[in-house]
């Protein structure tokens, strides 16, 4: 009797597990589908997309759409492809990430190890700054960029991204340094180590993980930004997200879907690579951004 019921339980267990695996795999297909569609259709000639089937593998494989998206596709008024805009994004992202990460690390250090009256208010204000809708600062930002002569320059975009990233970078480092033993800092202080020496010799060597998390977070957000890029860039400082949107939504000429897909993958490649190489840290950053305190 009991053997039978156990057997039943085992069988319903296997059935349940089969259902679970099926559902999980179906969802994996759902999440991969758009990537598959982009990839497959970026390797087809245009007529195969229009006449054929989006799901089908290419009958005739070609990398022409990729070459076109990279270096010859018409974007705005010039047939440059995405290459110059990709470069703009790199030139914008690298200094903006470096600046906001360094400042965030120093801020986190001060806010946890050199506490002063009102430090919680300072931190609270920086934290709240993470969540403002950027529409609220769009008009005055444009104004100030205009007044300082930085309107439409990559430098202007770097500054804007660095400043509006400060809240998050400070938050990340503050929460990380909060757990770092303050006794070590005090001991070093008694030994006569200075403010910067303590930071460089004691905190920085163990900051590897949080630096990776912060850099990934900032890199992803700034690379993927569209709002600031579309509002503050001019002809020679347009970042890749804006260029991609111009490429896809330009109303002139034939819609070259295959080129659009290749371009979309090109624009996504840097953040995808970062995600694949260091997914663990990427997730940690997302969680840290979501669960505060």
């Amino acid at each position, binding site marked *: 009797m009991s053997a039978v019921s156990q057997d039943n339980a085992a069988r319903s267990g296997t059935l349940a597990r089969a259902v679970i*695996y099926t*559902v*999980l795999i179906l*969802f*994996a297909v759902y*999440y991969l589908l*758009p*990537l598959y*569609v982009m990839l497959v*259709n970026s390797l087809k000639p245009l007529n195969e*997309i*229009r006449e054929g*089937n*989006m799901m089908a593998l290419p009958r005739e494989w070609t990398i022409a759409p990729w070459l076109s998206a990279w270096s010859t596709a018409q974007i705005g008024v010039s047939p440059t492809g995405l290459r110059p805009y990709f470069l703009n994004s790199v030139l914008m992202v690298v200094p903006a990430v470096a600046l906001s990460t360094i400042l965030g690390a120093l*801020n986190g250090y*001060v806010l946890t190890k*050199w506490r*002063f009256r009102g430090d919680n208010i300072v931190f609270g*204000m*920086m934290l709240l*700054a993470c*969540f*403002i*809708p950027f*529409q*609220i*600062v*769009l*008009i*005055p930002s444009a104004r100030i960029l205009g007044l300082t002569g930085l309107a439409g320059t990559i430098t202007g975009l770097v500054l804007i991204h660095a*400043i509006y990233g*400060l809240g998050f970078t*400070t938050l990340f480092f503050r929460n990380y340094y909060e757990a770092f033993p303050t006794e070590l800092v005090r001991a070093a202080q008694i030994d*006569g*180590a*200075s*403010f*910067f020496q303590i930071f460089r010799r004691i905190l920085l060597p163990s900051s590897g993980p949080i630096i990776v998390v912060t850099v990934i977070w900032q890199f992803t957000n700034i690379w*993927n930004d*569209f*709002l600031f890029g579309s*509002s503050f860039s001019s002809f020679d400082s347009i970042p890749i*997200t804006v260029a*991609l*949107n111009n490429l896809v*939504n330009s109303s002139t000429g034939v819609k070259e879907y295959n080129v*659009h*897909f290749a*371009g*979309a993958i090109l*624009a*996504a490649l840097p953040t*995808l690579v970062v*995600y694949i190489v260091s*997914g663990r840290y990427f*997730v940690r950053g*997302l969680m840290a951004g*979501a669960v*505060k*305190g």
Partner: protein
Amino acid sequence: MAQTQAEIVPVLTQRTSRAPKEALQEWLPKLVLAPSFALILLFVYGFIVFTAALSLTGSKLLPDFSTWVGLGNYVRLFNHPNWITALKNLAIFASLYIIVCSVLGLGLAILLDQKIRGEGFLRPIYLYPMALSFIVTGVAWKWFLDPGIGLEHVMHSWGWESFSFRWIKDGKFAIYTIVIAAVWQSSGFVMAMFLAGLRGVDNEVIKAAQIDGASTMTIYRRIIIPLMRPVFLSAFVVLAHLAIKSYDLVVAMTDGGPGTATWTPALFMQKFTFGRNEMGMGAASAMVMMMMIFSIIVPYLYSELRGGRRS
């Protein structure tokens, strides 16, 4: 740098020269923090005040503080059909986005938490869309849902001739296609949040319930899911915040169209401020957006920070 190295010696030997150096050391932390704080003060809080003031003026193409109109812009805003459309769309988009992402996220997390072989393989697949820009997501879904070449075309070529899916071209349904794309992008992230929550549940509680004869279903319904309350709250705050700011995805997929069918508050702000030279109204719409976000974020941060201090 030379300065910091020189300091070690005086601290140990020359007690008389300590005072000014010590004063510097005392001020240094604040000096280091000051530039960041000043930037935030100006670029965030100063700019909010600027936009708030602007929303009370009749500014058109450029800021113009000579024409005060009081709350006139807000009155016009809430009487403007495009703003009403934007608010309705936000309500539809935000509620569906939050509900579907939470249900899907929790469901996938529970399934993935059943000691699944290949979890390490599946999890990153669910989560990678979060690394993409909304513009890329928008391009992918725009063409995938396009009746001419996308899903409908595929079904026809597979022999299902009567299949019709033209939501993205239909003013009544276009907003739902944006929900589809947004859910695809964010649900994996919500799954990761719930998974972290599930992994934090105390095993003893579950074992005790099992000994009492509770079925797996009951354990989840009565014990585990109620324990996920803080995760639901975090997910709600993050998703609501993303929904109110939603802009890029709409621009990439429909650019507000067909007509004004998929306008959101963020799109309204952009179009009125920079497209129609109605800067006063644009500023007013941005203020309303900020108030919506703050009404969700401020209580959340307050309780999180207070809770953090208690523990």
